[in-house]
Every structure is written in C-alpha cells, then in structure tokens.
C-alpha cells in the first residue's frame, strides 16, 4: 500500500469521524434541552452560601448551581483562586478566567457533570446572574425596579445605614506608618459576622511577609498573622478588639511571642476598612 492510499484512507476516516461526532452530539443534545432547567432542584442563595469552602463548595453560574467539591483539587490554579467563589454567584469568575477570557467550551462540558440544581430566590423564581440581569436590564426594567424599590419599613440595608451599622459586603482597609503601607486587609461581612479574611499586603521595614519562605527567620511572624485572621473567621465584627491582646489569637512560635505581635496595626486596618465603607457588594 503506498503513501497516497494510506493518506487517502486516513482522510476519509477523519472526515467520517468528524461527521459522526457532530451528528451524535447534535442528536443527543436535542434530548437534553427538553429536560432543561425545570427538572432541576431549586436552590436558594442561602442554601448556596452554606457551601462556601473546600469541604463543600457550591457555585452558581449562569443561573445553575454546581457542586464542584470533588473537582477543586484538580483545578489547574491554586485552590484559593477557585475557593474564593464557593457559596456564591460565581458567573463573573467563570466568565473571566483571565480578565475578559471565559473558560473553554471543554471546561463548560466538564462543569455539566457537577450540575446539582438551579438558583432561585426566596419565592422560588429563577435568579439570573448579575451580568445576565444587566444585559436584560431594559427588557425587564419594570419588574426589576419594583423589587429594588422596597418600602422604607422593610429595607434592612437602609435601616443599618441609618443607624451607622456596617452593611454586609466586602471591605478593604490599610494601616500605614512613617510613609510605609504596612497592613492591607480584606474581609467579608455577612449578618454582622467576619469571613474570608485575608491580607492583601503585610510588610515592615522592607520585609514582605507574604513572600517569605518557610525557612526565613521572620516566617513565624507571618504564621502568627495568619492565625489572627483565622481566629477572627466566623466571629462577630466586635471580635476585632481581641487584636489588642493578640496572644488570645496567635501562639508563641520559635521565640516569637504572640503577645508582642503588633495586633494593633491589624486592628487599625480593620477600622480603616469599616470607615471606608463597603468595597463591593456581596
């Protein structure tokens, strides 16, 4: 058999395989669309929010809810990147793998395996993602603005704002001294409780603590700061005053005493965050 014949045979086999793939896909997807969203379990935002960590991670993407707990360890990026979106409406993260670049069609296919339900509001109506809502903004304008215009008697966010209570949302704040930014914290506030506390910056005298290796002398100090954040996780906002006595939250490590940790600076960054107000809405 000469090369021409082999190439010709492969060519025919290739085209036939493509046609098979396309036709099988077209035929099977028409079935699936019939069994569309109506058949899926309704899941509310509150239920979704309960699954916000590595032990159980649910995400709402384009109105559907996925339980990706089993997939988290396989995701190509650091766990943090994917865990950040657990328990939330995560369409934005999905559509922006890199800024402006959505996940691939193949990833979309993998996502389907983890589908567990559809996102609904308290009345059981489907909830669309923010992006989709914006896009449909004009078409559904009236219905949306009815919901947005709550009576002053029932608008809790208005009440909290009037009383000077911090609103739910994401906060960011910094502490600086001597012309140097030393602490930058980020946290979420939900029903008055702290969550997702992280340091966006932590430095002193040109040492960037977040970049230290485990064998660096000052590494224990970074660990202690992480302990501060972990200690506050899930606590009421008022717990930030414990930072004035950091030994309550951080252990002594390698001769670095928890008591001498500059918890005040972290506290100050939290207060700065609250002063600035909500950085982004939940």
């Amino acid at each position, binding site marked *: 058999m000469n090369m021409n014949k082999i190439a010709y045979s*492969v060519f025919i086999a290739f085209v036939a395989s493509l046609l098979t793939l396309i036709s099988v896909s077209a035929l099977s*997807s028409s079935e699936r669309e019939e069994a569309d969203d109506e058949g899926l379990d309704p899941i509310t935002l509150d239920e979704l929010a309960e699954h916000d960590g590595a032990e159980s991670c649910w995400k709402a993407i384009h109105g559907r809810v996925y339980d990706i707990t089993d997939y988290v360890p396989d995701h190509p990026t650091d766990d943090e990147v994917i865990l950040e979106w657990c328990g939330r409406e995560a369409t934005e993260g999905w559509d922006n793998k890199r800024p402006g670049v959505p996940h691939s069609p193949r990833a979309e296919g993998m996502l389907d395996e983890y589908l567990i339900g559809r996102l609904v509001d308290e009345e059981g109506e489907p909830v669309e993602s923010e992006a989709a809502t914006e896009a449909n903004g004009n078409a559904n304008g009236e219905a949306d603005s009815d919901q947005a215009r709550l009576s002053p008697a029932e608008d809790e966010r208005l009440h909290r704002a009037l009383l000077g209570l911090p609103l739910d949302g994401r906060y960011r704040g910094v502490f600086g001294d001597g012309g140097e930014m030393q602490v930058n914290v980020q946290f979420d506030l939900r029903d008055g409780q702290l969550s997702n506390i992280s340091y966006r910056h932590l430095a002193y005298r040109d040492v960037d603590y977040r970049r230290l290796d485990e064998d660096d002398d000052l590494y224990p100090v970074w660990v202690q700061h992480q302990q501060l954040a972990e200690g506050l996780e899930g606590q009421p906002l008022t717990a930030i005053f414990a930072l004035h006595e950091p030994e309550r939250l951080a252990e002594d490590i390698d001769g670095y005493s928890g008591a001498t940790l500059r918890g005040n600076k972290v506290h100050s960054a939290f207060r700065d965050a609250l002063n600035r107000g909500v950085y982004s809405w939940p």
Partner: protein
Amino acid sequence: MRRWLRPGDIALIILLLLPLAVALPRLGGLAGPPEVWLTWVGRVTGILGLAMMLLAGVVSCRAPGFDRPFGGLARLWHLHHWLGFTAFILVMVHALALGLAAVPASLDAAVATLFPPVSHGSIWLGWLAWLALVVFLAPTFDFFGQPHYQRWKRLHLVSAAALLLGLWHALLLAGEAWPWWLLGIAGLGAIAWRKGVAPRRRHAYRVEAVDPLARGVVELVLRPEGGGIRYEAGQFVYLSPLDESLSAGRGEEHPYTIASAPSDSRLRIGIKDLGDASHALQTVTPETRVLVEGPYGEFFGRRFPERDMLWVGGGIGITPFVGGARDLAAGASVDGHVHLFYLASDSVRAYYREELEGIAEAHEAFAFTQHYSRERGRLDEAFLREHCPDYTEREIFLCGPPAMNAHLRRLLAGQGVPASRIHSEVFDFL
C-alpha cells in the same frame, strides 16, 4: 529508499524533533485517564505534523547540491513525499485526538473544541491550513485519474498557504515560538527560493545539434552561453526549452540525464520520446535557447570504492552510463574495473553501442557487453556469470525501466547480493 541514514537525514530528524523537544516539558505526562493521554497525543501529533509540513517545504527547495547529503534528488523527493503525507495524517490525528479528549466532559464540549465560536480564531486557522492541504493533495488521491503534471505543480503552490496558516495557528497557541519561527522561515524561504529566485538563476544554453540515435531517441548537444554548469558523470538536470515552434512543453521544466563527460565543452542529453514534452524535443529547432538548472543526483555515489563495478543499463537508462564511459574515455580516474551490460531489444534500439564498444577496446578498465532480449529473452544469471564471473562481488549500478530494475533486483538478491550494494535512481514524477 535506502535504509542508510545520510548526514542530511540526521539534520532533518534533529530539526523535526526540535519543536517537540522544546514543548515536551510543558505537555505534561501520558499517565492518567483517557482525556489526559489523548490531549498529549493530540498535541504531540500537532507539533510533529506541522514540523513535518515545514520540513517538506524545506526539502522542496531543489537547490543544486542540496540533494547530495540526502543521497540525490530522487531520494530527497521521496523524503518530501513521505514528510508531506505523514504530516497530513498527523494533523488529522491531532485534531481528532483533541476532539476526543473532550468527549469525557461531554459530546458538546468535543464538538465545541473542534468547532469553537469564530472568536477562537487560532483553531479556525488550523482548519484553514488543513483545508489548504486537502486542496492540493486531493489530486494525488486519484479521484480524477493521474493529475496533469504541470497543473498539479501549480496547484502545489497552495502548500505555501497551508504552511503560513499552520504556522500562524501554532504561533498563537505555542508556548515557545522560536522553533516555529526557525522552521517557518526555513520552509517558506525554501518555497520562495524555488519559485522566486531559482528560475532566474538557470543557465542559458543554445541547441547546437539534434543528433538522431534511433527512432524516437535524440541526443541534444547544448552549447553554454555563459559559464554553464559543473557536474559529475551520471547527474541530471532540469531542462526548459524556449523554442517557440515547439508543439508542447515550451518553458516547462523536465528532468533529463546528462550523457556527456564533465570535461566536455558541450552538454549532451539523451532524450527518448516518452511524453508530450520529450516528443516535442525530438524536433527542437537548432540555435534556439534552453534553460538548464542543476546538476542534481549522485548516480555514481560510491559506497564500496574498494570494489569493482557492474553497470546495467536498459533502453534510455543507458544515458548515465554513457556519461560515465565518456568520462572514463576522457581520462577520468575510476576506482576499480567497470563492466557495463547494455540491455536492448535488438541492434536497432542499441543506440550508443558503437561508441561504447570503442571505449571498451581502448580502455582496459572498461568492459562492455551487449544483450538483446529479442534473441536471448530477459537477462539471466548465466549470461551475467558468463561475461562477468565476479559480478556478485561488485558494486552494482542499475538504470532502466521499472520492470527491468525489479527483475534485476530479484535476480541479484537471489545470488546473495546485499541491497546496500545495489544503486538505482528511479525517478518518476520528479
């Protein structure tokens, strides 16, 4: 094709593996579920396929002398042919493997991987490259019978588009771009040289005489207008006649073997009426111009210079041996003794015979035996043994019609002559 690796082959293999070697660390492993190894296979075949396409372009440059490290132009053309078809097969395996790798996710994902939204331009560039390959390879699938050679050659230029599109596809997706720039410039540069520069570097000759040798066979005697080409015995050239009165093949290039000795001031070419172009050349007008490109091939490339030689020429396949004998007659030094067998159907078709007999009489190092198939049937072992008892010990050179070559190869293999000691340059479709 020879089983021996030539220096050129080794260079080709290194260039072929270069992009793969550079990319391999980032391709991950083969171990794991099907989607992992299918992705790996898809990427590796894509990288090898494009590298082969570009190298097929590189070896098509047909620069005189470039073919020598590959063992002659005929062998280089086989390499080109092989690289091109293998590349075509590999790029299809590449696409299918990547598509199938997405099937475990879902069928829709598989289809979307192969046919994504138009915004994923890099994938569509790959498809366009494949389409270009199909366009110029389709005639070789023999849908419509044997393709017309000159038309097919023009269509083959679509390969440049395939290379460009494939290269673009890879540059958008590859991690390291430099191996692709290297191979891309080499491949496209070779095509540009072949189509743009080389035609202007051909040597002009004048037809001094058209000597008829037999019915349908002439020897063209060509006088160089400038320096002319430098060649070795047994090499061949591409000849483009410019005679306006030719009935066919004017300005077309076709390969012909040189029958003159390198020391001859004239270039002599034996031409048999085998097709439209060679038919027209039988009556080419003297003093018209021809353009000559070459020389190519290494017909008498020795592998066992310590051995004597057996030359067997049949029909118009006698021409390289005529060149070799004339070279010998002109005083060229040859390692070992030469025995030439000339296979013809009868004395009318045994052109060049008298001249070859004359050379054999005058030179001890050269013996000549004529064989007529009309009298004795096909050349057999007994005839060879009778006239050249040590023929199995010699380094053997064959040139003639494919059936004769096949017959002689069988005969020689039956006598225990290793294939490595048999040379034959068969060129069809060059």
